[in-house]
């Protein structure tokens, strides 16, 4: 059941330049699945709309949720100033998440690029079986690498070549001769397009997490749609709602150019 509530900040720290790691106390943690997200509301009324931020880690027993986000504007800048015991309004849990049941028994690539890396942590935690975690960074600020390494082998790519393979996640796959049956990816659109093309070429299943500017977060406003190959069941046109039908889609079902 989706709901909006006031969460309490448990901790916050900057883990790379402009990348913040915040734990909040909320019962939403008990329902969160990997790949889902929450809507986080700024207090400043000049910035009205909630910010969609993915679930990085959900501690069900403690009722604590971890979000890792980049400061991208006024709203996230406000969040970055929160300290222990501050309150923050959140709504969730939103979206579909990665299809864990379809991944069972398969060799899985977990691919993340930049601020698309955080949702892979909860996925890595929850996914049993053989997994390769391939993460792409701009530079040597390898946030969340140690956390991910606790749940599988991590391969790093950096754009500037300062760590791991120079290039992107697919360059790291090639350099390390990695193989899998299915891909779960989250990252910037150029990366997701490349992942989609790679999966098509290799005949692999791929589940990619998309983002778009959102307003309501619950599927009512139709702000955040993606073109779909088939007519969408809800909209009856070739548009699916990223906030509710996604954010995770099978790559071959969406037209992302």
């Amino acid at each position, binding site marked *: 059941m*989706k709901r909006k509530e006031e969460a309490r900040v448990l901790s916050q720290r900057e883990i790379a330049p402009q990348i913040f790691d915040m734990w909040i106390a909320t019962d939403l943690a008990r329902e969160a699945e990997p790949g889902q997200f929450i809507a986080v509301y700024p207090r400043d009324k000049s910035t*009205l709309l909630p910010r969609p931020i993915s679930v990085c880690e959900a501690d069900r027993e403690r009722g604590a949720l971890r979000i890792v986000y980049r400061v991208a504007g006024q709203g996230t800048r406000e969040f970055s100033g929160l300290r222990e015991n501050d309150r923050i309004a959140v709504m969730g849990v939103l979206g579909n998440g990665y299809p864990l049941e379809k991944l069972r028994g398969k060799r899985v690539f977990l691919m993340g690029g930049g601020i698309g890396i955080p949702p892979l942590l909860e996925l890595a935690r929850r996914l049993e079986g053989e997994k390769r975690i391939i993460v792409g960074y701009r530079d040597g600020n390898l946030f969340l690498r140690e956390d991910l390494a606790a749940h599988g082998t991590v391969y790093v790519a950096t754009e500037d070549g300062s760590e791991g393979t120079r290039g992107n996640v697919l360059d790291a796959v090639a350099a390390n001769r990695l193989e899998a049956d299915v891909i779960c990816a989250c990252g910037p659109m150029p990366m997701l397009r490349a992942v989609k093309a790679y999966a098509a070429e290799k005949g692999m299943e791929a589940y990619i997490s998309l983002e778009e500017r959102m307003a*309501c977060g619950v599927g009512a*406003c*139709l*702000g955040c749609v993606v073109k779909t190959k088939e007519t969408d069941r809800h909209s*009856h046109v070739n548009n699916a709602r990223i906030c509710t039908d996604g954010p995770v889609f099978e790559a071959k079902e969406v037209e992302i150019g």
Partner: protein
Amino acid sequence: MNTQVTLAGVTLKNPVMTASGTFGSGMEYSEFVDLNKLGAVVTKGVANVPWPGNPTPRVAEVYGGMLNAIGLQNPGIDVFLERDIPFLGQYDTKVIVNVCGRTVEDYVEVVERLGEERTAAMLEINVSCPNVKEGAIAFGQKADALYHITAEVKKHAKQPIIMKLSPNVTDIGEMARAAEAAGADALSLINTITGMKIDIHRRQFVLANRTGGMSGPAIKPIAVRMVYQAAQATKLPIIGMGGIASADDAIEFLLAGASAVSVGAMNFVDPCITEKVVKGIEEYMERYQVEDIRDLIGAVHE
């Protein structure tokens, strides 16, 4: 205490409704709000056939509000009648169906399809969406065009019709009078105000559509002024909207001359807001010992 209001013969348990396009067909928000508590649910615009809407990005935040250029994406009247109307029919609230079209014939077709639908208490005719190239606002910015479509729709409508007016006009009073003269049963205003946002880092328009309709608290004073002017210009009941974020805002619209109010963009900020506005209006009435909400309508002192 009486909170009931009557619009064109339709009685609502309270004056609070949802603004079209911000609430889907109620299904998504029914997890947050008890729809039985609302005066009416106004549904997302529906056309005769499915519309795909505009490319993304479709929404952008602006200071104290937002821009949208959804472009009236909707699944068409067939799906609406099969899925959305039966869903809303389960609730003890009035259902107002927002109707959009590219041509007069489109509007008439939808209105006729809804004619036998008892769940649809009223029809709101969208002649003010700024985000589509054909239809919609093309009918709502010239008094003679508005008169024409109002008269045509009225000929075919079985339910009372509400003409939803655009704020993107020079004289709202003239538009209100044109709709009244053509037989409209009520007015709703304001739709969004055409706006634009440019990303200075990329030197690009933020919205794929370049322009979008602005909504949210920042537009409220404009909306209150236009509701007041429309109320002065006609005898038609008015549904006031534009930036309502609290019961206080809703009461401001009633005092300006609205008989009912709609909450729009603020549903995105607080999914439970409509129920809070209902409750807040009752608290205001208790505090000021207002026995009948109708005593507030247009009660601003001259």
